[in-house]
């Protein structure tokens, strides 16, 4: 049972499709395991539909429907998509193997990290997996910019509480914390760190590759 959830504003930006891929990943992993947030996200998707419905309409070119039909007819047999195979877990797809057997880099004492930023080409944020061995302590630290984290395995505790598997937490540079891995498993988290150069807004972030 998750107790720490994404806030509604982030969920709305997710539903609108405005979040970067790494941030969307954190939210999606949480939604897959948290029914109440899944249903909030469903409501927000409906909000998107209703908002779209209330906007002005722009007529499309007259030939468009015919070209769509032509495309449909040209595709091999009107064999509609079969029931899709169950999606491979997105983490597995991303990492290729069990999170416990990754080439972790030992950092400080009980902490290991693995940078997976390169899995998200063209993004401005740093994406890292962090592992705190069971019972281990991380040194006190603050975060540059903001850090969005989801717990993938195990649990950690800091002065704000206990964060279990699939819990979602956002820390800013105001938060100093000293996490301790609790429970019998190593605690593994996925974190998205905002870029050192802070661009304003998601849209700029999306456009940035063009500008460079």
């Amino acid at each position: 049972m998750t107790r720490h959830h994404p806030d509604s504003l982030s969920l709305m930006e997710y539903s609108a499709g405005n979040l970067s891929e790494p941030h969307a990943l954190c939210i999606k992993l949480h939604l897959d395991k948290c029914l109440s947030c899944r249903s909030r996200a469903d409501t927000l998707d409906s909000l998107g539909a209703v908002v779209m419905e209330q906007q002005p309409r722009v007529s499309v070119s007259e030939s468009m429907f015919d070209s769509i039909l032509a495309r449909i007819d040209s595709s091999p047999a009107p064999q509609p998509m079969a029931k899709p195979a169950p999606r491979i877990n997105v983490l597995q797809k991303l990492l290729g193997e069990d999170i416990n057997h990754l080439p972790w880099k030992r950092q400080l004492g009980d902490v290991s990290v693995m940078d997976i930023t390169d899995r998200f080409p063209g993004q401005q944020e740093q994406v890292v997996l962090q592992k705190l061995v069971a019972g281990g302590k991380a040194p006190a630290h603050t975060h540059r910019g903001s850090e969005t984290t989801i717990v993938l395995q195990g649990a950690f505790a800091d002065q704000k509480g206990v964060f279990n598997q699939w819990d979602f937490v956002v820390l800013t540079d105001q938060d100093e914390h000293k996490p301790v891995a609790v429970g019998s498993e190593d605690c593994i988290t996925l974190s998205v760190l905002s870029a050192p150069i802070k661009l304003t807004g998601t849209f700029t972030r999306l456009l940035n590759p063009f500008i460079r």
Partner: protein
Amino acid sequence: MTTLDKKPARGEGRKDPWSQLLVKVGKNQDRQAYHALFEHFAPQLKYYAMANGMASHAEELVQEVFVSIWRRACLYDWQKAAASTWIFTIARNQRIDMLRKMRRTSVEMPVETEDLWQIPGEDDNQPVTSLHRLMSERRVRESLKHLPEEQITVIAKVYMEQKSHQMVANELNIPLGTVKSRVRLALNKLRVILQDQNV
């Protein structure tokens, strides 16, 4: 549609007309139903594409969405989402996909858009009750009628123009905190805010 709106709670499980059409497309590859959906949704989708800065690709986006609707209609489950919600999520994902393709580097991305943004009903891991989902769109439509204009404006900018809260604040020349509180008030009315979160 307006007549359905008046139905009592027991009628919530009824399909709205667009969902009925979409089911026909999925079951019988009904082209007439498909055309009716096109007439209704294509102009909305074109505005959606234009509003979020894809003017030169607007018709392309509409086409992609409709081809996708045809191919996926057999997966559509009216009990999991109303047609308009389902189509909105397809449009959102197509837009994300198009932006991804435009900025694609030589490196392949291991994660697809749909691994990150799901189309309702296409992942059966979700036991959320159908009634809940259906009600949610009706409830949203109803609640939205009673929201003050300033709250709707902010929400529309986020959904239609893909603006972050910060960008909306800059554009309307109001503090970020004001934008956020307007959104929170609106989401509170829509009951999206979790009970343990403060408004």
